[in-house]
Each structure stands twice: as structure tokens, then as C-alpha cells.
């Protein structure tokens, strides 16, 4: 409202100014007017004090309600998240994050009343939150097992056993055989057949035919 040369403003405009909701040009004019008019300045100060008192009271009441009524806290957080999400429903991870940020008093109350059941609920909640990871891991492990079973063992263990016939010796086909007298005829005396075994691999065997005279055993028969 404007009177004469001096420009004046209504209480509503003064309230908007106090709340900082006027356009910049109009806010400058209101500021000039408040600077020159003591009554307007007093009214503006009163409006600010009343507004501050109302905000303080509201915050206190809200905090008290959140402590005493958990549902109220959850509801309020959902509303905030919905507003921040621009009207879309928030995801599970966002809900969990929101709980971590804004519901500390409620959580403290829950932990004190739930007691030992909390850790089990925590485990369940963890599995619910990571259901996709757990399912993916289980499917991957199953697929790997199936592939391994389908392919079978890749290495074949061959157990070699040495038989007693060849341990530390030479195969029979490579061993030297002693000489063998197929037939022997001694005329006018008798013969004794002896076999000398070889001393080692570099030695050879020998057959000894020793002739004796039948008439005189002490006398050797001439060859």
C-alpha cells in the first residue's frame, strides 16, 4: 500500500520479506521502508521472533513424536524420500540408507528392546538385501560343478609297480645263461662236468670237463 510520497507495505508483504520470499527489487524497497519507519521495523522484528518461536516449537514437537511414535518417524522419512525422489517410490537400498541417516533414536530404542533377536534379524536382513549376490554365486558354483563333472578328471594317475623278478636285476632275456652240456661221451675213462659262474657283468661263464682214468683215479688220463 502506498500513501502519498512515502511508499508503505502491508503486513503480508512484510511477512514475506521476513521469510525472504519477496523478489529482490521489492525486497529492496521494503528494506528502505523498514529503515525509515520505526513502527515497521518493530513489526518486522516481532514477526521474526514469532516465526522463530513457531519453528522451534514445531521442531521440538516433531522430535518428541519421532521418539515416542516410531511409525511417525518412518512415515515422515518416507514422505521426505518420496519428495526427494520426485514422487517415485524409493529403492530398498535408499530406504536402508535413509534409516541409517535419520532414524538413530528409533534404532537405539529397537536395539534396547529387541535384545538377542537383533542379530538374527540382521542376518536375515543382510541376506534379503544381498539376495541377488547370493543367488548369482550359487548358480555360478553349480555351473562350475556341472562342467567339472561333465569333463571328468583331466589327469590319470598311473601307479607303477615293480615286480620282484626285475627289481635290482636284469631282465631274464638279458641275463647270461650258464653253459649246458647237451651230450658227452668219454672213452676209456670218466668225465666230471663243472660250471664256473661269471664274476660280474664283464666276465663270462665257463664249462669245465675234467677227464680221469678209470683204472687209476689218481692218475689223470692223457687227452
Amino acid at each position: 500500500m502506498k500513501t502519498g510520497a512515502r511508499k508503505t507495505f502491508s503486513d503480508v508483504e512484510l511477512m514475506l520479506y521476513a521469510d525472504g520470499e519477496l523478489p529482490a527489487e521489492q525486497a529492496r524497497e521494503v528494506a528502505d521502508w523498514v529503515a525509515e519507519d520505526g513502527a515497521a521495523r518493530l513489526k518486522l522484528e516481532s514477526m521474526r521472533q514469532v516465526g522463530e518461536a513457531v519453528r522451534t516449537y514445531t521442531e521440538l514437537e516433531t522430535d518428541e513424536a519421532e521418539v515416542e511414535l516410531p511409525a511417525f518417524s518412518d512415515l515422515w522419512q518416507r514422505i521426505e524420500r518420496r519428495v526427494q525422489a520426485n514422487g517415485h517410490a524409493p529403492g530398498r537400498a535408499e530406504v536402508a540408507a535413509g534409516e541409517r541417516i535419520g532414524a538413530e533414536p528409533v534404532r537405539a530404542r529397537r536395539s534396547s528392546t529387541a535384545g538377542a533377536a537383533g542379530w538374527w534379524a540382521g542376518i536375515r536382513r543382510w541376506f534379503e538385501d544381498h539376495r541377488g549376490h547370493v543367488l548369482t554365486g550359487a548358480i555360478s558354483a553349480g555351473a562350475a560343478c556341472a562342467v567339472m563333472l561333465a569333463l571328468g578328471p583331466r589327469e590319470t594317475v598311473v601307479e607303477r609297480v615293480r615286480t620282484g623278478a626285475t627289481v635290482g636285476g636284469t631282465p631274464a632275456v638279458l641275463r647270461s645263461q650258464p653253459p649246458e652240456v647237451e651230450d658227452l661221451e668219454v672213452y676209456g675213462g670218466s668225465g666230471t662236468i663243472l660250471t664256473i659262474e661269471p664274476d660280474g657283468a664283464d666276465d663270462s661263464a665257463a664249462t669245465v670237463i675234467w677227464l680221469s682214468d678209470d683204472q687209476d683215479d689218481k692218475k689223470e688220463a692223457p687227452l
Partner: protein
Amino acid sequence: MTRIRRVAAAMALAVAVLGPLAAGEGRAEAQASQPAAAGSADCQIFEIKATNGEGGVDPALRPLARKLKKPPFSSWKTFKLLKKHDKKIEKMKTLNLGLVTGSKLTLLFRGASGGQPTKPRLRLTFTLDDKSGKRKLDGTINLDSGDYSLFGGDSIEDAGTYILAVSCSAP
């Protein structure tokens, strides 16, 4: 079509590589199990005089030294080579050999059969007649190539004992 060609080429390569190996193995087994086709044998005949004098074993008798230290040859202290004969004997062809004692040795190489790949089993027939032509003994021996046959019992001059050693080798 390309795949079929690749498979065929791989099979041909495998046959080319593994075939000679298998054939070589088969040849080795055949050599071990089948008689060697030896047409002749190289024989060494040692005429030895054994006494109880000083002297030991003649260095020329080194291949026989270890055998001469065992019974019944351990009864003598000295072994001296009287004569050595190196003879090549054709299969189934008799070797007639006169000895220093006047006796006569005949040796017949009948062939080789089996035995080790490097030491075939030889079959030898021998006869020994005294200087008057009287048969003293005859017989047949199967022995590995390189093994020895020793005949003893004849006394010679100077209280010595005559020993005849025969060793034949075939490839």
C-alpha cells in the same frame, strides 16, 4: 571339407611318425626272440700248461685269469700259455686242429639260437683224439657267445697239467 582334410593329414602324420617307431620296437623284439642268423663263429683256442711253480698267470691268459683262480684250477699256481689259435669257423664245417701234445681237436659250429641280443646262444660239437688217433671224448655244448669250455686232465712233461680252453663268438 577343410576339416576332413585336416583330420586326414593329422592321421597321416601320426602314422608317419609312429609307424617307424612301432616297426623298430618290433624289430628289437624279433632280435631278442628269434635265432641270430650267424653263418660263422670266431673261436679262440688256448693251450695251457698248469704247474705249481712260481710265475702266476701268464698275461696272455688274462681273459681266463679269474677262472683259473677257482676250483679245480686253484690247485695250481702257475698257468702258462703254450699256444693260442684264432680260427674262424663256418657253420656246419668241421675245424680240425692239431694240438701241441700231438692230440687232435675237431670243432663244429652248429649254429646260434636265441640268447641275448648281443650274446647269441651257440651250439658247438667237439671231439678229442689222442696222438694215436684214439677217440677220448666227444660231446655237444650250448653256451653263450664268448663263454668258455675248458678241458683238463692230461699230464704233460715237467709234472705239468695240460688244459685246453675254447671260446667262440658269433655276431
